């Protein structure tokens, strides 16, 4: 146990004995959590371990059933997020809440009065308690303030304010034109300008490229050096070791331990998080050496309803007994690619064939009728893959009712199959009729996987199959997909975590703005290379150093 009992004076905040239950579910049970002034503290735990609840309590969204919160040495009782921000606690959510049609500046100052804006941007010089001034430019003389009060002036102040943390962005841009990482910067500045000295970052790297993540880390470190405290929620262990000073592990609503990151081994962390030792190695069985082509996509182009090109001229093939990974920033055309292959959307042009059988433009049912057994595990499991309010049996029926004879639906076979799926995949559910939306994320994913695997596909498309799943469930998914690969199924795996893509897939295709940037051999590539391709550099440009496309 390495909990260093720090004196209260150097704590930014401390939470003691926090408990919170929702109905019969106890989300937090006597959690102790302390963060020092000027440290980056990781909060680690699986889904449902109580991280979000604890942070929602700290930021004033929920009130704890019992427990004590003190901030900078004073006991507080937050009744609303406003109370928390007044005490200097700000939360940067995973899903940004920006008004798309307003400029970054307007988004930042929305809800603040003129006086508040200037006080926030001006008082830095005098406010040396927690943040020491790094850049003297920021200070503004009072007459200057009176002369110029327009938005441009405020934008300038915000730009300078941001520079102190090495955040680089254009405050005059509309929020809709900002990149994901710029949007995140706006969110960070939003809470900083409201006086936050304690920042809660909820899985901030989930949406970033490796390069952007690096930049964010340097910003966060800068903020730490200036006396801010940061709570960093993540389940990527690599990031925690790279960035954080200490880590607190939560498990099943309790705080397990607080450790100094530099003195701890990743395997110990995982063990503490999961509660027992688990096999964490992602295995990659050798692909089928015959390399028989399964899916062939040529010149696939798709324009959405507004006429925007979501996919342009994408060509690739998948082979039997192989996993082809697809990397790319969120919204680079992954969803459209999957849906076009599965027959849910009709491509504008191009051809898609499975075993030389053309299926482009066919509906999912006509594809099945052609004898092509393909299955698709969509990104939005409850909104597309399943019917949320129905039980497992009725969800299994989704894929087979149409092939039954007569007008009445027969549920006996589907319910047998459901029992089998529950047993094989170890799904925790009170029964086959229990609505699937009430299951946990991991179990929901197992229901879809089980249903689709039982269709004995030869091509399997999975979109973000492990999104939101905890470590154990993720590994179950990897194991199941590897079994499919061994049974000579061709798997298309759309992924987010580059470490996983590199360790798990045989080849990796990188998409950027709907274009195929190139296909890499997973054995001979790096995160840096994939990151470059994700932000728009073609493989041949990286490998040869010559930009063929621009030279043309």
């Amino acid at each position: 146990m390495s909990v260093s009992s720090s004196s209260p004076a150097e704590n930014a905040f401390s939470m003691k004995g926090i408990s919170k239950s929702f109905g019969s579910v106890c989300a937090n049970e006597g959690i102790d959590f302390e963060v020092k002034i000027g440290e980056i503290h990781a909060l680690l735990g699986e889904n449902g371990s109580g991280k979000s609840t604890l942070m929602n309590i700290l930021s004033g969204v929920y009130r704890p059933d019992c427990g004590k919160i003190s901030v900078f040495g004073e006991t507080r009782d937050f009744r609303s997020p406003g109370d928390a921000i007044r005490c200097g606690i700000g939360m940067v959510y995973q899903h940004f809440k920006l008004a798309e049609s307003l400029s970054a500046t307007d988004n930042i100052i929305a809800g603040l009065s003129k006086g508040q804006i200037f006080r926030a941007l001006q008082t830095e010089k005098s406010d040396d308690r927690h943040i020491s001034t790094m850049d003297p430019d920021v200070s503004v003389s009072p007459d200057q303030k009176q002369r110029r009060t327009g938005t441009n002036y405020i934008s300038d102040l915000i730009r300078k304010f941001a520079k102190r943390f090495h955040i680089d962005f254009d405050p005059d841009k509309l929020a809709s034109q900002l990149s994901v990482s710029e949007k995140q910067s706006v969110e960070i500045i939003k809470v900083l300008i409201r006086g936050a000295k304690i920042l809660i970052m909820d899985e901030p790297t989930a949406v970033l490229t490796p390069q952007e993540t690096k930049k964010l880390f340097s910003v966060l470190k800068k903020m730490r050096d200036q006396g801010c405290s940061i709570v960093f929620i993540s389940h990527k262990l690599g990031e925690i070791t790279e960035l954080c000073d200490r880590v607190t592990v939560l498990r099943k609503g309790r705080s397990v331990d607080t450790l100094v990151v530099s003195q701890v081994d990743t395997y110990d962390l995982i063990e503490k998080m999961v509660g027992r030792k688990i096999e964490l190695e992602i295995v990659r069985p050798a692909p089928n050496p015959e390399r028989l082509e399964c899916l062939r996509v040529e010149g696939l182009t798709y324009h959405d309803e507004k006429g925007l090109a979501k996919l342009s001229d994408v060509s690739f093939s998948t082979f039997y007994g192989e996993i082809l990974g697809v990397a790319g920033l969120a919204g680079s055309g992954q969803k459209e690619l999957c849906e076009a292959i599965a027959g849910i959307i009709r491509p504008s042009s191009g051809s898609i064939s499975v075993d030389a059988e053309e299926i482009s433009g066919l509906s999912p049912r006509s594809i099945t009728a052609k004898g092509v057994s393909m299955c698709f595990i969509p990104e939005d499991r409850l909104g597309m893959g399943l019917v949320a309010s129905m039980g497992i049996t009725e969800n299994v029926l989704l894929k087979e009712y149409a092939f039954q004879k007569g007008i009445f639906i027969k549920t006996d076979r589907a319910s047998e199959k459901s029992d089998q799926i529950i047993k094989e995949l170890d799904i925790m559910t009170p029964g086959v009729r229990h609505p699937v939306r009430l299951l946990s994320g991991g179990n929901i994913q197992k229901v879809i996987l089980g249903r689709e695997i039982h269709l004995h596909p030869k091509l399997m498309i999975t979109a973000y199959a492990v999104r939101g799943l905890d470590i154990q469930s993720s590994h179950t998914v990897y194991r199941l997909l590897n079994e499919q690969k061994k049974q000579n199924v061709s798997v298309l795996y759309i992924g987010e975590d580059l470490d996983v893509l590199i360790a798990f897939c045989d080849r990796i295709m990188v998409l950027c703005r709907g274009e195929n940037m190139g296909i890499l051999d997973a054995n001979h590539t790096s995160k840096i290379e994939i990151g470059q391709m994700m932000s728009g550099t073609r493989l041949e440009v990286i490998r040869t150093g010559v930009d063929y496309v621009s030279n043309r």
Partner: protein
Amino acid sequence: MFRIAKREKASITDSIRFRSLGFLAGLLLSMGFIAVLGYNPFSALVTLLIGAFGTGTGLRNTLTFAIPLATTALGLSVAFRMKYWNIGGEGQLLIGATAAMFVSLVAGENTSGWILVPMMLLFGFIGGAWYALIPGLFRVYFRTNETLFTLMMNYLAIAFVKYLYHVLWKDPLKSGFPGIRSIQEQAGLPRILGVSAGIIVPVILMIVLYVLISRTKPGYEIRVVGESEPTAHYAGMNVQKIMVGGIILSGGIVGLAGAVKLSGETLTLTESLGGGTGFTAIVIAWLANLSAPIILVVSFLFAALQQGAQIIQLRLNVPAAVAEIIKGLMLMSFLGSEFFLRYRIIFNKRDKSQSYPQILSASQSSDIETDKTPDKEVKP
């Protein structure tokens, strides 16, 4: 002060408790209102109950009111299951009745009732279905807003019937007075114990719809489409075809309600034949949670309220508006109880001694804890 938080799921005992409390509150409010008017609220209550259930005539009237309400609500429930907001029940009902009237008008005076009645009901179904299909096709193929479209179609239907009433189908025998002639005697539905035989229509429909929705392929498809259109696409369903089918069924049943009302109750077509049935049925369908058997029960209770309020109006000699207000108070209280089933109120004592440092006096944030922050961690 207090906060409002979302409830996970109310238990059955809770739902019975809150609903009966709502009912009781409505009753108390109505009785208070009657007392304020200077009448004895207890005798008014007794009058209402006896008026609705206590006498043969009262019970027969209640059942007569219930038939179109239940049939219409059953029809609308099919559309609502697909999340197709069919607010056009009133118009579909009127057009259904108009189509039935048309059959009666073109048929000879001596056509057998065995041909007339089924033809009228069939035309009623077709009329309602066709009328629902106009906004339906626009919604399915052009993504127009069905709520506004179906609502507007109601007024069009009322105006059309007015035109028939005053001009096109005006009965010349009525010497200058507007009006359409009554249907042939044999075109009226037979009576069972003084109640129109139309009462079997909602009962049969209830069974048919129940089986259709829960046991058959089209019913399954309707449920999937209503839950999530992307899922339906994903499963390879033809969402447009399913929606059109559901809209035809929904409008058809509502049209049938109009034909049954014409043939079993009013015996002629007037612009006020609907009488708000299409709107009341929306409330009934939702109160019954779209469940076919419960729709029958709720319709009966609604009809009882309507009949009882009419009797109060007659016996206590109060204006018609009073009966309407009583109906409104009952409905409002009952619907109000739904709020407590979905949300709970948490009272918290504010500790006055506490003060906050004013780093920035950010705008006052509200104390209401809404859906913005769903209880993510809640798992069964």
